[in-house]
């Protein structure tokens, strides 16, 4: 859990942290690879919401270089297969995500990230 798809959809939301608050940086993470169910409609449906550079950077940081630096305009099967693997099959089980702007540490434990804010961080 904490797949890269989720990582790509979450941003730091602490009070006043509105710029440079995405993507969160991985810290001391342990990764598991687990097979996931392939569904092209699901991938195509979410693709417009994905920040491409953040996804490629996160994947490379975790050692996967199957995605091109530029988002291809043509969506073929080969590309979808790689995208599927990066988005859904790499799970971060332990570690943390750190905001590049305010340095809030969002801990991940047993695959569930704790995105709660402390009292001084809520609006």
């Amino acid at each position, binding site marked *: *859990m*904490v*797949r890269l*798809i*989720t990582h*790509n*959809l*979450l*941003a*730091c*939301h602490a009070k006043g942290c509105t710029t440079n608050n*995405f993507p969160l940086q991985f810290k001391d993470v342990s990764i598991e690879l687990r*097979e*996931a*169910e392939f*569904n*092209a*409609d*699901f991938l195509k*449906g*979410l693709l417009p*919401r994905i*920040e491409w550079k953040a996804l490629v950077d996160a994947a490379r940081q975790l050692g996967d270089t199957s995605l091109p630096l530029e988002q291809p305009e043509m969506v073929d099967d080969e590309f979808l297969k790689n995208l599927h693997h990066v988005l*859904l099959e790499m799970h971060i089980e332990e570690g943390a995500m750190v905001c590049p702007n305010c340095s809030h*540490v969002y*801990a991940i*434990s*047993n*695959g*569930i*990230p*704790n*995105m*709660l*804010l*402390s*009292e*001084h961080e*809520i*609006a």
Partner: protein
Amino acid sequence: MYTPYLFQFAQVHEEFRIPELLSIAELHSFTVQIPEDIDVTRPFVVLGLESDDHARLLAKRCILIKSICEFYARGKNYDELHATTRTMPSKWARFVEDASFKMNVTAYNHTIPQTRARDVVEDFSYMGMLGRIDLKNPEVTFVCYEEYVDKHGTTRDKHEGDGEFREVFLGRLIEEGTARPLAKTYDVKKRKYFGNTSMDAEISLLMANQTLASPGKVIYDPFVGTGSMAYTTAHFGAFVFGSDIDGRQMRGKEKVPGIIRAAAHYGVDKRIVDLCTFDVTQNPWRCGEMFDAIITDPPYGVRAGAKRLGRKPRPPGSTPRPAVTPPSQPRPDDQPYIPPTKPYELSALATDLILLARYLLKPNGRLVFFLPTVTDEYEEVDVQTMLCEGMEVVANSLQDFGSWGRRLITIRKTTSEKYEPPSFKPTSTSRESPKDSDAPDHVPAHKDFRMKYFKKFNKDEYDT
């Protein structure tokens, strides 16, 4: 062109029947013709469909459908029924020559003695079926249903009142409902992980159908709790995100989170995309228009109270709280920081939920959630005033518990305009929701539901 079909419903959740089948019809892009004078409380209903295939799609997915037949005739008594049936031999003409067949004679609210059931079958001999009778694997099954009024609570002999039915129906079986047994599969009692707020399996399945869950869709539950609706939506092929302010509900006590364990038992864990701990009023979603549906059972304060980050206001006259400072030292790993929470009043939660759904849903996406209501005080306008621009109620079905009940509200996002995320400010209702200006002073009956519940819905006590 619609032809009439005879629907037999399970005798539960009357108000959910039609919304459910309309949802499944929408999912498969066909329409159902519903008569204006429909009585949804009866177990047998005649509706118009365009083909047998549509009937099969409905019977395979709708939790509340027991069977669907091609409708032949109905009557107050057998004379009426036979008179109508005799006028339409074309309906079964193609089966006369060599189709193997059988006829079921059953009753609702009654047991027909076998001897009379046999006579009933004999009386249809004018249909002139020449094929072989086959009770196991017939090519054609005719069904004859007698509907009796509910005599529940009276003492009577087994066959007392035999033949005194309200109405009798005749049809040809198209498909038995095959989705009903799912309620057993997802039975909470047999689940690997559940909590005291887990949702009943049948209702969870009905909710999943209201979201139009299907393979490849993305569905989000912002109050996921122990995941009851995550399993059923994932069962129908959707990918599910869940979040909750209380991570303990999702995790349980073992290393592998409870929701994942239960989902793995059902074989749907691959479609639980992720679970996150956060307060939905302080949520980290980076963008909107992500989800095809939002499904949730918000906590309404009886078994679990809704919470949001922040502190409760202090009573007047007490010393003010010291200013909040960020912690100077990082906390050790084994002591996670638990931020303070304050109650989240239900009517504010409901309004915020709809605004949030408008932001997070794709156009045409659906929000499906339960709203508890006080039976004596509920008014249609309670639901209307929660709405904001671009969100429209599709269905509103009551599950009645007597003095209170809960309404399953299905809302569709009808707009494709982009909206800002809601502010979740306590005053946001009057500012952001334009419809509120029509009735600025309307207080919905679900406001302060928790307090009303614990005062046993005694108006005198809480109005003063």
